[in-house]
């Protein structure tokens, strides 16, 4: 290209720049990625922010694993490549398509816990509430998805996060560290989510060697065999199966119970949340 043409091109670029940017505008045009959220709770991140959040959140999640929001953030930031595949699996099954269409959420407002408790023993609904009580957890403490840009993929990840407890329940594992790791291995084999992979790969470094041995000798073989051979659990419309017999459900999905685990004391998560809610209600009532 001739020098003249290059100069013409450059000056054209410069003139359009000047036309659209005044000195003050120059200093305020700092983002190349839109900051408008695509859904409620969405936080758009550009590449630098993505990397920064990943570094910070993974450090925080490792140092303080109780920071559920940081664990969720790492999940959000790493699940990007895998979610389209999961969404396609959902689209390939009738049940999954129904889930994507209706987008059900799982928490104490959308699920009638008292009705489930009245179901006969042996049903999935009853097994679920029994498991919740036994472990002392509640579905209300799941962190919403923030860092996935596409609303549908964000929903898929949110659905996975909310169904995590169902996976616990269906394979009959509690919520202590070794059992969580076993479920992570199971989830990684079944769904392929990177966060589950990280937890599986590095989570065992923080537990005692006896627990680690038990994990790798008993639970991991089970998790990998069961997770890999069963149906993709993201496609299961759990809310339609409350009355189904639990063993029938397992047979249908192609999974079987995990080896016997150590069931410790119930956590105080559910009680703490209930207390916080009643305190907030009291405070809002008081003048």
């Amino acid at each position, binding site marked *: 290209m001739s020098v003249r043409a290059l100069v013409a091109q450059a000056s054209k670029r410069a003139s359009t720049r000047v036309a659209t940017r005044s*000195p*003050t505008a*120059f*200093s*305020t*045009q*700092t*983002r190349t990625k839109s900051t*408008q*959220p*695509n*859904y*409620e*709770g969405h*936080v758009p991140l*550009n590449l*630098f*922010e993505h990397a*920064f*959040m990943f570094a*910070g*959140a993974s450090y*925080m999640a490792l140092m303080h694993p109780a*920071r559920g*929001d*940081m664990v969720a*953030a790492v999940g959000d930031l790493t699940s990007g490549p895998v979610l389209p595949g999961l969404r396609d699996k959902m689209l390939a099954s009738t049940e999954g398509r129904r889930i994507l269409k209706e*987008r059900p*959420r*799982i*928490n104490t*407002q*959308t699920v009638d816990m008292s009705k489930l408790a009245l179901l006969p023993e042996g049903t999935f609904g009853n097994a679920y509430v029994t498991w919740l009580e036994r472990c002392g957890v509640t579905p*209300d403490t*799941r962190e*919403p998805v923030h860092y996935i840009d596409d*609303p*549908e993929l*964000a*929903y898929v990840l*949110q659905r996975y996060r909310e169904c995590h407890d169902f996976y616990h329940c269906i394979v009959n594992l509690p919520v202590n560290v070794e059992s969580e790791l076993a479920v992570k291995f199971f989830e990684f084999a079944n769904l392929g989510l990177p966060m589950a992979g990280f937890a599986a790969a590095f989570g065992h470094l923080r537990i005692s060697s006896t627990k680690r041995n038990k994990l790798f000798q008993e639970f991991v073989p089970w998790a990998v065999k069961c997770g890999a051979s069963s149906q993709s659990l993201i496609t299961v419309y759990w809310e339609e199966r409350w009355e189904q017999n639990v063993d029938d459900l397992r047979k249908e999905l192609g999974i079987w119970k995990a080896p016997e685990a150590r069931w410790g004391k119930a956590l105080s998560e559910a009680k703490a949340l209930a207390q916080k809610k009643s305190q*907030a209600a009291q405070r809002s009532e008081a003048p």
Partner: protein
Amino acid sequence: MQTLTRRLSRPTCKFAVVRPSWTSPLPTATLRLNHTSSNQGSKDVDSRFTHFGFQTVREEEKESLVKGVFNSVASNYDVMNDAMSMGVHRLWKDEYVSSLRPGARGPLKCIDLAGGTGDIALRILDYARENYADRETSVDVVDINGEMLKEGYKRFKKTMYHNTPQVRFIESNAQALPEEQFPDNTYDLYTIAFGIRNCTSVPDVLKEAYRVLKPGGTFACLEFSRVTNPLFNMLYDQYSFSVIPMLGSILAGDRESYQYLVESIRKFPPQPEFAKMIQDAGFATGGLHEGKGGAWTDLWGGIACIHRGVKV
């Protein structure tokens, strides 16, 4: 703020494409603003609107929203300040207090507004003690937020000023200091550091400052302000809007409060305008320019700024 964000991320909401959540936390307030002028008719005669970061909210609501923000940041406040400014806020506060030279002309009665965690109060007392062997200077630490005052009280317990008449902690609104507790013409020095932008009505704060200061007393305000250099401003904006909310979510688990904090900085009037407001409240200031003889001094290019005035 916590209840606000909890409500926004309520599990029952679906992932439909919605209007951006943080432009309408209080739908009725903004809708009304869009369709009617705010002071029209007898119904709306009292509802005025102000900014809460980049959102528009009713004036009455701003106070409780800000309260919510500071309730949730209180316990991590000092840690977060260090992380966000990479420790530089300490340099700014040191510069602020040393430029005032408390104790140079005898013991002072000081009042520190929005002084919650006691950063400025401690510096004033230490400066007077170390440079002038002054143990009579006193600081009344006033804050609208009880949680922040609790943090300040805790910090002061570790110092020699605990349980002495040199420091007092009082919960009050800077815009309306009760006359019995804060009579006219009481104080020699009125300081407010990084607090005035959170107040709903800055002129009211300045009016109260004028009232409680003795004639000859000094009003000094340390606040975030406008960076004058456009290139540096670009980097500063980038840092503010990218890194600070992320640090908020990582360190404190609260992105929204820190988003509010960086937005509130942008909404605060620039240096000359604020200097004019100080003059309008009755204070004598330097000329409307920066630096020697001026009404304000920029720190770090304008990221922070010290405005001074004297009650005549």
